[in-house]
């Protein structure tokens, strides 16, 4: 076994270890620590791989970007883990299983991010989705949680069935399940080329469900609202990032942009997601639903990247610039989003925008963190979200994708409305009713807030080192 499998092995060992300790004695603290230790070790083992020369096996690909993305995933998970103990203590449920499922979902997403074969992709996806069903329906007493669990089960099963159908069709066409062979045999299918297109559409349909892009977005808000908060955070970050990375990989390896129909479909979905997502966000009062819709819009922006190869380019800088744009945008968005969720986890009783009224005057650190995160989501300069958006805009302008860009601008303007409304609520003078005395700030939470501010503003203001790192990784 080469070093590349080490993170997964560490995670598996952690799972088995916590399973063993669980069967001996149930203890929340121990489970928390085992989980944290496992995550830390995994991060270390991933950290060792960054900058190393990569290899490709039949099932997995370990290029320079993969360990970086995996590391980002683990950082996100760890940021959620930090607050998990406190949050689970408030939950009237058995605690230890949550860590198990969390670790398994993380394992699944790592497998997905590194997958180079439909089988490994499929297994990673299912490992993640099944763990997520458990995580979503974790709190058995809550009606909403169960509903969300049922919806997620159906949704993910339909999505994977669609993707499997697509894979089966492509397999029938080409006789291979490896991503690498997708493009090589593009010309010599056993069936007419419309079959290939059908297969691709099936896979895209499944992916759109996973990324909750527009025609398949209907239940995402219910999920975010109904699922336990930590699970929503994981759903929004882990599952979407992994799905997008795979989509991006197969889209470029399979050269799907050569099919005009596919390009049209993706472009339409992207534009619709940007507009519909932002528009639905406008009507939302519930913060979690708002985040759900905003994530629809953000992944709509990201879809632009898939279409780059379909447009004329001007050989701008290096060919890796679009890779850098994806990575930068994903990282920026993930950090921002996980920040929002950890702020929300610090104030569990706050559900709607009204609940935020006057927060700034009572808990300035929390409010400032949340406000900066909202600005980052909206893409205001000096935040990391803006840098991501800037990379994206540069790439898209370079490829002259004016239609998508105009949708992006309109979407962003609509988006500003609701991000700004959150800030407006927080600075509104409290009318005496709003009482934040129930909010207790823990040192954990405070530190986390400073870390988030550092990530969002620090990397937003001085992105040089970060952009350089991503450039090196994309080249290698």
């Amino acid at each position: 076994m080469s070093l590349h499998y080490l993170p997964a092995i560490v995670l598996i060992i952690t799972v088995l270890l916590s399973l063993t300790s669980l069967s001996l004695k149930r203890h929340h603290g121990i489970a928390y620590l085992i989980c944290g230790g496992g995550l830390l070790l995994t991060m270390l083992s991933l950290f060792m791989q960054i900058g190393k020369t990569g290899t490709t096996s039949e099932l997995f690909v370990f290029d320079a970007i993969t360990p970086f993305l995996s590391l980002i995933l683990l950082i996100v998970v760890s940021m959620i883990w930090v607050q998990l103990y406190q949050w689970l203590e408030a939950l009237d449920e058995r605690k230890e299983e949550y860590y198990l499922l969390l670790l398994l979902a993380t394992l699944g997403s790592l497998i997905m991010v590194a997958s180079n074969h439909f089988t490994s992709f499929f297994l990673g996806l299912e490992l993640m989705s099944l763990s997520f069903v458990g995580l979503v329906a974790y709190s058995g007493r809550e009606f909403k949680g169960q509903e969300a669990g049922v919806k997620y089960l159906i949704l993910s099963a339909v999505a994977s069935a669609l993707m499997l159908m697509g894979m089966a069709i492509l397999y029938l066409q080409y006789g291979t399940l490896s991503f690498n062979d997708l493009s090589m045999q593009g010309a010599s299918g056993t069936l007419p080329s419309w079959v290939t297109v059908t297969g691709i559409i099936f896979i895209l349909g499944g992916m759109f469900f996973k990324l909750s892009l527009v025609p398949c977005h209907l239940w995402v808000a219910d999920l975010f609202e109904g699922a336990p908060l930590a699970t929503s955070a994981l759903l929004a970050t882990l599952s979407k990032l992994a799905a997008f990375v795979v989509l991006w990989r197969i889209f470029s390896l399979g050269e799907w942009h050569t099919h005009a129909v596919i390009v049209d479909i993706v472009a339409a979905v992207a534009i619709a997601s940007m507009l519909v997502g932002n528009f639905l966000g406008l009507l939302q009062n519930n913060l979690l639903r708002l985040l759900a819709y905003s994530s629809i819009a953000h992944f709509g922006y990201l879809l632009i990247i898939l279409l780059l190869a379909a447009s004329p380019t001007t050989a701008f800088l290096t060919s890796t610039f679009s890779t850098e744009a994806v990575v930068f945008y994903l990282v920026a968005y993930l950090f921002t989003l996980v920040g929002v969720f950890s702020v929300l986890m610090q104030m569990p009783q706050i559900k709607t925008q009204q609940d935020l009224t006057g927060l700034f005057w009572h808990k300035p650190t929390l409010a400032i963190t949340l406000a900066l995160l909202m600005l980052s989501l909206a893409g205001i300069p000096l935040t990391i979200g803006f840098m991501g958006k800037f990379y994206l805009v540069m790439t898209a302008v370079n490829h002259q994708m004016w239609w998508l860009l105009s949708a992006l601008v309109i979407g962003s303007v609509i988006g500003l409305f609701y991000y700004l409304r959150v800030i407006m609520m927080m600075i509104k003078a409290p009318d005496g009713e709003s009482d934040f005395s129930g909010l207790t700030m823990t040192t954990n939470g405070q530190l986390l807030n400073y870390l988030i501010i550092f990530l969002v503003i620090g990397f937003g203001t001085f992105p040089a080192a970060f952009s350089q790192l991503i450039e090196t990784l994309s080249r290698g």
Partner: protein
Amino acid sequence: MILLSLLLIPLIGGIVAWYSERFNPDYPRWVALASLILCWVPVLPYFSAFTLEQMPQWLVDEPMRWIPRLNITAHLAMDGLSFLLVILTLAMGLVALSSAWTEIKKRTGFFYLNLLWTLAGVMGVFLAMDLFLFFVFWEVMLVPMYLLIAIWGYENRQYAAFKFFMFTQAGGLLMLLSLAGLVILHYQQTHILSFDYTVLVQNPITGDLAYWIAVGFTVAFIVKLPALPFHSWLPDAHTQAPTAASVILAAVLLKTGGYGLIRFVLPLFPDAAKAIAPLMMTIAGVGVVYGAMMAFVQKDLKRLIAYSSVSHMGFVLLGCFAMNIYALQGAVMQMLAHGISTSALFVLVGMIQYRFKTRDLDKLGGLWQQVPRLSAIGLFFGVASLGMPGLGNFVAEFLVLVGSFEKYPWYTVVAASGLILGAIYSLIIIYKTFFGPRGDSVQTSEVKGAAEVTDTSNREATTLLVMVVILVYMGVHPQPFMDMVQSNLLQTIAKGLL
């Protein structure tokens, strides 16, 4: 490091001011005053530039590394135009501070933080010579301004702040697209990837796309100016903003639009600028008249002044696109003079509102008897606003009209008629406020007890009188200001005529 310190002092001062509120709510304003005065130190040596025979291209030039991946630099530089506008910003910062001195009683620390940060952002806009950096300042200065309006404004503040932010952000996004387009097109044509103004300006881009990019920049700038179709945020923002924010908004924030046009649109897109000039001249001409007419029917004093701003800034737009050295100098003069006279008017309205709790024209009247000093100064600025010869505004408007008459006589005629309307609304302010029958509010406050209404305090009077002096100086001796910008503007014009 001179220019960087100019930006850092207010930024750090703001944080200190906010923190000092914990000890005493009076401290923040002193901290703000101290940091504003400190800001003058780095710029003082450059006043000698007024005496220079030949202006250098840049007074200070400070390139710094920032994001090497995209060759983005933190390039700060100052030439005559930037210098004048920075001075204006600092001066108006003091005016705003003076007007906020007693008016702001709640959450003082956070107020002065936002005030100072807005000033820092605006100075950043005037000093940034890297387009990316410029864009960053352009967008970021809106956030503290938004907070100023949304927290300390009047009745309808949330709506006004929201509208202000949305309009300018939408313009900003357009600018972001154009910015990316500009850099990439420049890369295609010259194979140099740079966001630096000094690099971009050497080889202006050409082609159809350049035209659209120029339109994108222009729209972003005229939203801020504001010119006609995009002006509707201004009256709301002005009406609802606290006096200090109104002063900053009118005196410097609007000027960033004009500055952007002169600095970026004209030299970077000479062809496109020529192509869109007729359209812009039309907008400007209509804007001058429309603003004046709207001002004419307003009942709210602040709203009236806001519309008069629309009208006056029309002259700036007119001057920018006349492609003529006199008109351009006029536009710069107009930015300075309007900055001073309008902010003085806002300060006066602030004082009136503070004393009489209203800014409704119908409820005011006959202030002369009650507050003669205030009224006298008000009279002066009212007259200045209508373009009385001998004051800065007159010089500016005259230069613009002279400069643009050559090429666009009809627009000039239309704009000149705006001057007449301007005279009417200025006289209305003067008549209805200071003379005329006593209004309801004035009487009631008198009934309550004359002791409540006092005339201008020494602080207020000094602030206003200094402004009077500057305005008069600009009117009678405008040459130094014009020399300051002449060489650079001539280069700009030369590009356009090539």
